[in-house]
């Protein structure tokens, strides 16, 4: 079947299999490999993208259900001011080690910070319950968010 949706601000028309996941379309058909497959069961959050602004696990999200919707991946968030600020803060704060989970974290956190300009650390720890990082222990990721928040609020 044919499906039309908006990816990172550009309209895309793709031929898809009705059973295909959004992650499969992004990675295999559009070669947007910044979004990662870690578990394919909605547990690790490495595949997190934004659909109409909300974070979803694209590995268990039906591609067909994305028709007409607006999808943002890490590649698009690199062109977004908030996304770029977060990315720079991740690097500066040591919030990225192997980096495989990072695109998913960026997606979740963009969504969180669009809703709430200054979340508490407890809010963030809860909001990140769907994103697993095996390397960092999360502290430096939280530092990166704090740095992003103070930088943006100081602008």
């Amino acid at each position, binding site marked *: 079947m044919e499906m039309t949706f908006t990816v990172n601000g550009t309209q895309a028309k793709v031929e898809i299999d009705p059973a295909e996941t959004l992650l499969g379309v992004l990675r295999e058909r559009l070669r947007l490999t910044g979004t990662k497959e870690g578990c394919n069961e909605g547990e690790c959050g490495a595949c997190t993208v934004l659909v109409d602004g909300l974070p979803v696990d694209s590995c268990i999200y039906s591609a067909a259900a994305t028709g007409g919707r607006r999808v943002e991946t890490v590649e698009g968030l690199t062109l977004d001011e908030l996304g770029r600020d977060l990315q720079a803060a991740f690097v500066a704060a040591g919030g990225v080690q192997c980096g*495989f989970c990072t695109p998913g974290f960026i997606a979740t956190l963009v969504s969180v910070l669009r809703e709430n300009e200054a979340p508490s650390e407890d809010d963030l720890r809860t909001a990140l319950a769907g994103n697993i990082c*095996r390397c960092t222990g999360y*502290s430096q990721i939280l530092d990166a968010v704090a740095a992003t928040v103070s930088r943006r609020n100081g602008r």
Partner: protein
Amino acid sequence: MTVIGERIPRSDGQSKVSGEAIYGVDYAEPGMIWGALLRSPVSSGRITRLDTTAAMAMPGVHAVLTAADAPDAYAGWVLRDQRLFAVDRVHFEGQPIAAVAADTLAQARAAAAAIDLEIEPLPAVVDLDHALSPDAPLVHPDWESFVPTAGPDFPRGGNLAAESISDPPGVDEAFARAHRVISDEFVAQRQYQAYIEPKSAVGIFRDGRYTIHTAHQFPYNVRDRVSQFLNVRPSAVRVVGHTIGGGFGAKLDASLEPYAALLSRAVRGLAVKLVNTRTEDLITCPSREGAITRLRSAVDAEGNIIARELEVIADNGAYSGEMPWLASIALHCARGVYRAGPTRVVARLVYTNTTPTGAFRGVNGTYLYHAVERHMDHIAAELGVDRLEYRLRHLFTDGEELLNGQVLDDAGILRQGFEAIEAAAPWAELQAEKRPYRGIGIGAAWWLTNPSAGTAVVKMHEDGTVAVVTAATDNGSGAVSMGVTQVVAERLGIPPADVHIALPDTDVAGFDGGSQGSRTTRIVGKASQIAADEVVEKLKNVAAGLLEAAAEDLEVAEGTVRVKGVPGKSMTLAEVAVTAMNTVGPIQGTGSFVTPFPDFNPGCATGLMLPSFPTPTYHVHLAEVEVDPVTGNVRVLRYLVAQEVGRVISPDGTYGQVMGAVTQGIGYALHESLRIGEDGRYRERTLESYRLPLAGDVPRVEFFPLEHPDPDGPFGAKGVGEGPVLLPAAVIANAVSDAIGKPFNQIPITPEEVLAAIQS
């Protein structure tokens, strides 16, 4: 101006946060097709039927391979006990039986599932104690035919995969005259490394050689293993590394790589890619081994430990991997930080019909220190003395001699570790402030920095920047993207951004011992420092004529070669490098480094394969926990680490290793459960049931680095990454036992066990 100890952005940071970095699973070759494996569904059995006809006729299929299509060869890191595909017998669930190559991944998996396979189940050896009993079936009836990969054979036989025994004089006599004897038994489950990027590999057979693209911690080990399985010489295999999505030891040995290589050969050189599903990855991963540890200590009337006995039985799984080498680590941990008199150590590694175990950060040490530190708490409680005071009374000082004869000149650093913890969390205050269901645990450890060889070439470009050619890999720690980068930048007086380190390629860079044992910053950093020194000397020699000064009067600093003490008399590195093109030719330097093993007594034990611990580091941890009496959940409220690091090269890298390792240790202590059923199969099979630590599970670790620069390390560096995973299970178990008033001697401590203990 120095960059050592400064916070710098990791060189691969931007590509990782933006999604541009190409990991192993992202890598693609032109015209690439896909592979899949048929794996054994049972842990022990005889293959009675294996017919690939139907699979071969499936859409898109190019090749289906079984043992009949593979070289008749045995491979293994330490012992050559493994075939590429199961032959007649299967020995663990997930063992490859056949491999398929097809146009798409879905076609390859469908064809693998269509292979006609029948297996007659056989009894599985699962229980560790039973594995060594005379009536246990042999996992490998043909064990005698296995040949060590290098060097002489080691103690092994039947289901005993390796053994290391140290039996010094005086143990039995001390136990006979002991005032009391305190005994404990500890059980630790397996732990899955659970890196977020599943394993993958792309194989290409071209010009009679195999090229393998993989995201791997140890490319040279992949080269060796593939060459063994495919029965070609090592140089017939080229391994190209890609960005790694975590490894933690599980990506040190080959996995999918030899299958990708053999499949490519079978399809006349088309590139073939394999990628694990998460469940495949979990059930076949060389996890941290489960173990039973039994400890006895003899104590005199004054409360001094006068002798000790430690027995550990560890689960090798169905094949040996790296494990036999590690058996002697028990000797180094049994009496590693506290005096305990003559100590008998018996370490046995047993074959079972389960997935082969392997290296996971802090190999063997996590459960050995859990045992030793739980035992210390038990002894102190029996004697009615304070746990901390009892530890300090037995604590090693400078010059202590270990069971293997190694002398720890600087073990007094341990006391500094306890002092650093005390300053931040005074023990008496913690005791005085204690509330119901809260507990405190403390413990100490020592550890090694892996000494394996490494080498680097530093090339000076004509624009004044440098490239470092090395087969070292950055598994995410920052050891390459920050540590080695900073060492080279410092030596050459250039910004870290002017140092470029390419990904590993075994055709290009010399041997490297891999991203393991906290070795990269120290070993590769040192090799790169030596290489940079050669560059410095060459720069000075070229510049000497241009600056009309003697080479020994020159220095390389701040992007220039300049005459010492003569302001303004200088040239940029770029100018010198360009001049060199017309005088001596391109400037580059080479460095190699390996840490020698410290002196030891070879007669101290049998099976002493890892004889001593090079470049020791010292560690003291404290945890405060709270137990929820309704749910049985344990929450870590506070976690402190004092750690000897040599010298901090990269603060973000160092803290990142400590915080990350403690988090893995908290998971190990409390909820990462990789249980094995009676059928030898894992009960946990996905990340839904295998519960990893989340952001809400871990406190911010309070870290106190202790710096005693190592004269042999680059700018004083020692290893950092592994040590902090050694103690969380120990100190959390001590803290939970303290909170409830009952001993918790199993890892992990589950809510069910906590509730049972509260209710009993």
